[in-house]
């Protein structure tokens, strides 16, 4: 520990040493070679290969002209514990390096000691703003390994809940994005509307977040009585209010000034970086897994894939706002077409028996006991199953070895991959734009660090 009698100004070196992440952080110019400099500003992405235009890479810049500062890990605009190291020339950002891992809790390791039944409680905590997506990706991977069919009603319930969750997730994004730009009223409105969705989740699953509602074999509980009315109210209210957001944000000159043309990305760059979700669609690539590789029953509902043109902040905003409307459209169709029947698979090896059966049937008691002590066994194999989460492709790679616990569970988190676009988007912008860039990438740190 540093000597507290030394004043802060005199122990700058010590402070730097205490917070250093070594090679993970951004290094000064003089110790970074030109290839690395070029890489950090995204020069590798250009089709001609690594170009070293001095103006582009500014490798002749002296260290005393620039300043490396830390933004985060506890900055209100970083949406969690994201630490960005920025190299600034006055007000302008030259290089950026995200330093992540501050929320790493070893969830993939934990997943290896939890049974398949318990696994849902683990994965749901990764992307905590859209927990249903995580559960869905995980459950679908397990079901593919088990090779079981999910009843129709479960499929439609899953789809409805996933879309409601997408609405909630995009509302949080609108709220925090508004906050970052100083439109603080949007913060209140966004969270107010999200509350409607969360209240419905609480009514259905018993929890507002981290629901563990979608489980291998179906969903945890049937929809509550009168759910149609609840969901219709949510749909009507939110759909109406998206037009209020239009008035509040879309046409607002200050908002437009800070969003239009800021931090553009091209389709080639986005594809090379593996970026998915609204970030990729903002460049004009109509890639949405719900449409391109339909899962659940997305091929039976009518909706539009929203794409942008310029790949800038405003396109990303417009895509998310319109995706709320499209999701509401899907939810309405779910209400109309919701089939009746079982809400979970009736395979006794996967689904616990109803409480009443346990009292009268020895077999049901045994199944119940086995499921909650040991869990079900999944045949050996490996699978990668992907769904479209609000942030992009959420994949779950599962390796089963025939036992009741996954041998390896890996979640391809969209935010983790999308984060790689941040240095590219930041380049050349001002510090105030940096805030909007982080916001428009929409990273959820729980998912980035897992």
């Amino acid at each position, binding site marked *: 520990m540093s000597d507290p009698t030394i004043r802060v100004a005199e122990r700058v070196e010590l402070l730097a040493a205490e917070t250093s992440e070594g090679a993970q952080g951004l290094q000064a110019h003089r110790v970074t070679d030109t290839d690395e400099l070029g890489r950090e500003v995204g020069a590798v992405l250009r089709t001609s290969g690594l170009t070293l235009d001095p103006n582009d890479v500014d490798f002749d810049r002296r260290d005393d002209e620039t300043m490396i500062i830390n933004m985060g890990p506890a900055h209100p605009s970083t949406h969690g514990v994201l630490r960005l190291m920025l190299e600034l020339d006055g007000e302008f950002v030259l290089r950026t390096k995200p330093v992540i891992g501050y929320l790493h809790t070893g969830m*993939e*390791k934990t997943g290896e000691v939890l049974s398949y039944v318990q696994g849902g409680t683990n994965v749901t905590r990764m992307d905590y703003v859209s927990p249903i997506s995580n559960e869905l990706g995980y459950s679908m991977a397990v079901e593919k390994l088990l090779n079981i069919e999910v009843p129709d009603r479960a499929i439609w319930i899953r789809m409805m809940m996933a879309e409601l969750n997408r609405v909630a997730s995009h509302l949080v994004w609108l709220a925090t994005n508004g906050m970052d730009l100083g439109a603080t009223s949007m913060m209140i409105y966004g969270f107010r509307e999200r509350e409607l969705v969360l209240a419905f989740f609480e009514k259905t699953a018993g929890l507002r977040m981290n629901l563990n509602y979608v489980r291998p074999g179906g969903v945890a509980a049937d929809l509550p009585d009168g759910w149609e009315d609840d969901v219709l109210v949510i749909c009507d209210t939110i759909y109406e209010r998206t037009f209020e957001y239009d008035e509040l944000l879309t046409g607002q000159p200050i908002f437009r000034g800070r969003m239009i043309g800021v931090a553009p990305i091209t389709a080639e760059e986005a594809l090379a970086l593996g970026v998915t979700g609204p970030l990729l669609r903002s460049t004009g690539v109509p890639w949405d897994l719900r449409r391109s590789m339909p899962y659940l029953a997305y091929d039976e509902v009518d909706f539009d894939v929203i794409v942008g043109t310029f790949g800038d902040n405003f396109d990303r905003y417009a895509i998310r706002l319109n995706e709320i409307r499209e999701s509401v459209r899907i939810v309405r169709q779910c209400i109309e077409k919701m089939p009746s029947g079982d809400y979970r698979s009736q395979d006794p090896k996967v689904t616990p028996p109803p409480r009443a059966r346990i009292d009268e049937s020895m077999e049901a008691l045994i199944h119940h006991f086995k499921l909650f002590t040991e869990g079900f066994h999944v045949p050996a194999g490996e699978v990668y199953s992907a769904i479209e989460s609000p942030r992009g492709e959420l994949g779950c790679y599962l390796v089963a070895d025939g036992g009741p616990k996954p041998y390896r569970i890996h979640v391809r988190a969209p935010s983790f991959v999308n984060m790689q676009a941040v240095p590219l988007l930041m380049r050349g912008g001002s510090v105030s734009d940096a805030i909007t860039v982080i916001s428009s990438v929409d990273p959820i740190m729980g998912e980035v660090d897992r």
Partner: protein
Amino acid sequence: MIPLPLTAPPGVVTADVLASDLGCFPTLEEYVPLVSAFKDDGFEMCVDLCGVDYLEHLDRPMPDFVIPTRFEIVVNLLSLSKKQRVRIRVQAGNNDPTVDTLFDLYPGTEAMEREAFDLYGVLFNGHPDLTRILMPEDWEGHPLRKDYAVGKIPVQFKEAPGPR
């Protein structure tokens, strides 16, 4: 199952895998040329790259002519134009797992390869910045390895009673 691209190195072992259009099991030498052939064939995106430690299943069933090793790198490629997925499982070795980087083909694998290095200790030849990404820089060991000692670091809870 879809055929291999024409420019792929001859003799790559392929097999059916679950929820993917093709599974490939290249050797370490065939790995990068194979991915490169897929990239030229219209697989625009490397969606996922992760490591697996098969310490407890060294003799797991594999297609013919593939010798299973302890560490495996699993790559998922995606073609947006053809709407196809390909899974590539490369056997990375037993003791000092080392594979070539895909960074030159897909810059987006940078963070994923760092993650595989961080959690499994798989080295990637030619990776521009192979540092830890999730764990602190001075961390010892690679936590997702099966022989990593869980509970090695004692956790002290504030309210917990002291040792008796």
